[in-house]
C-alpha cells in the first residue's frame, strides 16, 4: 500500500499489486481513476512515498503438468504481466480483455516474453469484439479433452472474474483469481476488505488477494 501524500485528504493508503520486481525496485502500474492516483501521477521523480508491503498471499505455483492460461481484464494486467514473466518458460497462454484499444497495455512487453496475447475489447477497437471470457471459452475450451490439465489465473473486474469462475466450475478447471476490495489498514485489522467465501468472510489484504475462484461466493 502506498501513501500518496502526507496530509489528511486523501486519508488512507492505496492498495496496488506489484507489477514488476527487478534489481530491488518494485514497479507499480496504475491508471488514474480518483484523487489518490491523480496525486500519485503528479509526483515528480525522486519523490519519497511511504509504502507498506508486500501484503497478503501470492498466486500459487502451477504443478509441472499443467498448461497455464492467464486472463487479464483492464488493469488486472499489472500483476498478470509479472506472473507471465515468472512463468514464461512454461509458455502460458494469455487472454486480455479491455474496454477499448487505448486501454490495452504491455503488448510489446508480453511479446518480448514470447507471449502473443489474445485480445478482445468491448468496442472491437482492438482484437475481437466482446468479452474475453467468451473469447476464451470459444477458442480454447471446447470439448472435454481441451480442458484437461489446465490451470487458470486471473485478475480483473468483478463481473469478469465471476463469469470466469462460473465457466471454470462448469468445466472443472482450477482457477485462481486476484480480487480487489476497498481497504483501510492493509494488515487485517479493520476488516474492511472482506470477501464472502464458503468458509466465511476472508480478508483480501491478509488471506487474499488471491483466492480459489470456487471458494468465493459470487453474488
Amino acid at each position, binding site marked *: 500500500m502506498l501513501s500518496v501524500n502526507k496530509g489528511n485528504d486523501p486519508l488512507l493508503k492505496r492498495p496496488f499489486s506489484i507489477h514488476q520486481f527487478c534489481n530491488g525496485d518494485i514497479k507499480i502500474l496504475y491508471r488514474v481513476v480518483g484523487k489518490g492516483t491523480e496525486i500519485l501521477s503528479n509526483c515528480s521523480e525522486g519523490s519519497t512515498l511511504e509504502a507498506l508491503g508486500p501484503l497478503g498471499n501470492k498466486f500459487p505455483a502451477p504443478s509441472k503438468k499443467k498448461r497455464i492460461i492467464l486472463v487479464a481484464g483492464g488493469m488486472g494486467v499489472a500483476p498478470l504481466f509479472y506472473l507471465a514473466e515468472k512463468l514464461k518458460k512454461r509458455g502460458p497462454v494469455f487472454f486480455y480483455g479491455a474496454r477499448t484499444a487505448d486501454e490495452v497495455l504491455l503488448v510489446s512487453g508480453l511479446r518480448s516474453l514470447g507471449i502473443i496475447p489474445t485480445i478482445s475489447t468491448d468496442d472491437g477497437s482492438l482484437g475481437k469484439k466482446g468479452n474475453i471470457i467468451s473469447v476464451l471459452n470459444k477458442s480454447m475450451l471446447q470439448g472435454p479433452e481441451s480442458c484437461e490439465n489446465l490451470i487458470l489465473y486471473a485478475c480483473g473486474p468483478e463481473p469478469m472474474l465471476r463469469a470466469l469462475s462460473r465457466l471454470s466450475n462448469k468445466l472443472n478447471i482450477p482457477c485462481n483469481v486476484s480480487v480487489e476490495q*476497498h481497504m483501510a489498514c492493509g494488515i487485517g485489522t*479493520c476488516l*474492511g*476488505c*472482506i470477501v464472502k467465501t464458503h468458509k466465511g*468472510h476472508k480478508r483480501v489484504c491478509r488471506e487474499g488477494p488471491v483466492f480459489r475462484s470456487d471458494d468465493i461466493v459470487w453474488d
Partner: protein
Amino acid sequence: MNVSMKRNIDLSVKIGTLKLKNPVMTASGTFGYGDEYSEFVDIHKLGAVVVKGLSLKPKEGNPPPRIVETPSGMLNAIGLQNIGIDAFVKRKLPYLREVRAKVIANFFGDSVGEYVQAAEKLSAADGIHALEMNISCPNKQEGWIVFGTDPRVAYEVVSAVRKATTLPLIVKLSPNVTDIAAMARTAEDAGADALSLINTLTGMAIDIRNGKPKLANTVGGLSGPAIRPVAVRMVYECYRKVKIPIIGMGGILSADDVIEFMLAGAAAVAVGTGNFINPRITMDILGELKIYMKSQGIHAVSRLTGGAHC
C-alpha cells in the same frame, strides 16, 4: 536548568482505579486483538489495548463494501464482525497476557441479558483489566432502540452491567444524540467508572454514477480527523457535567491532538483510524508527547486534563 527540567517526565494516568503507564490507548475496532500489530508496535508500551468489540457468539458482520473514504475521514459499516468472547479468551488473550498488555475488553449485546452475560464472562477471564461497553447498538428485544440514544434504556443496560462486574467499567457513548452531557450523566448515575467519547458519527455516501449508497449497509460510522472538532467539543462539554474520567477519541493523529483532547478534559485518549493510516502511529505519538512535555517543562501529563476549562 530549573528543577522541573531535571525531573523525569511522568506519563502515567489514572482512569478511576485503573492505572495506565501513559494516556495513549487504541480505539476498539482499529487494533484487532493486538497480535496483528505486534510487528509494528511494542504492545506493552501502550497505555492500554482496547480490543475489537466482542459479543457472546461470533458475528459475521456486514457484506462488502464495508468502508468508503470521505474527506479527511472514512465511513465504516463492518457490522461488529468478531470471533466471540470464548475464542478471544482462548486464542487471543494468552498473547496479550504474555506481552504484559493492559487489556480493555470492548463488548456489546443485542439485549440487556446479553450485555450482562458478556460482562460476566469477560470478568471471569484472566488478563482483562477493564471493560468498555459499546452502547451504540440496538436493543433487538425491545423495539430496536439504540441503547446509547435513549437515557432510560442506557441507564437500564449500564446499571445491569455494573452489577455484573467488579472490573472498572467504561461506557463508550454514541455521539448521535441531541444532548451528549445528559447521556454522560446517565452513564455516571448508572455506575460507570469512566466514559469513552466518542464513537463514530452516523453518516453516508452516495455514488453519483449509479445513484446508490456506497456502503452495502447504506449508512456507516464516520471516523478520522473529520470528526475531531465534534469529539473535542463533546469531551469539553461532558467534562463539566460529570465527575468520572473521560477517555477522548476521534481522529487523533499526533501528540498535538492528544494534548487538545486532554486540555478539553480527557484523562486518557484512544487512537483509532490513525492505526490504519500508520500502524506505528501510537509509538510515534508517544515519542512526540515526550518531546512536547520536555520542551514545555511539563512534569506530569495528567496535569493537562481539563486545562482549557480554567
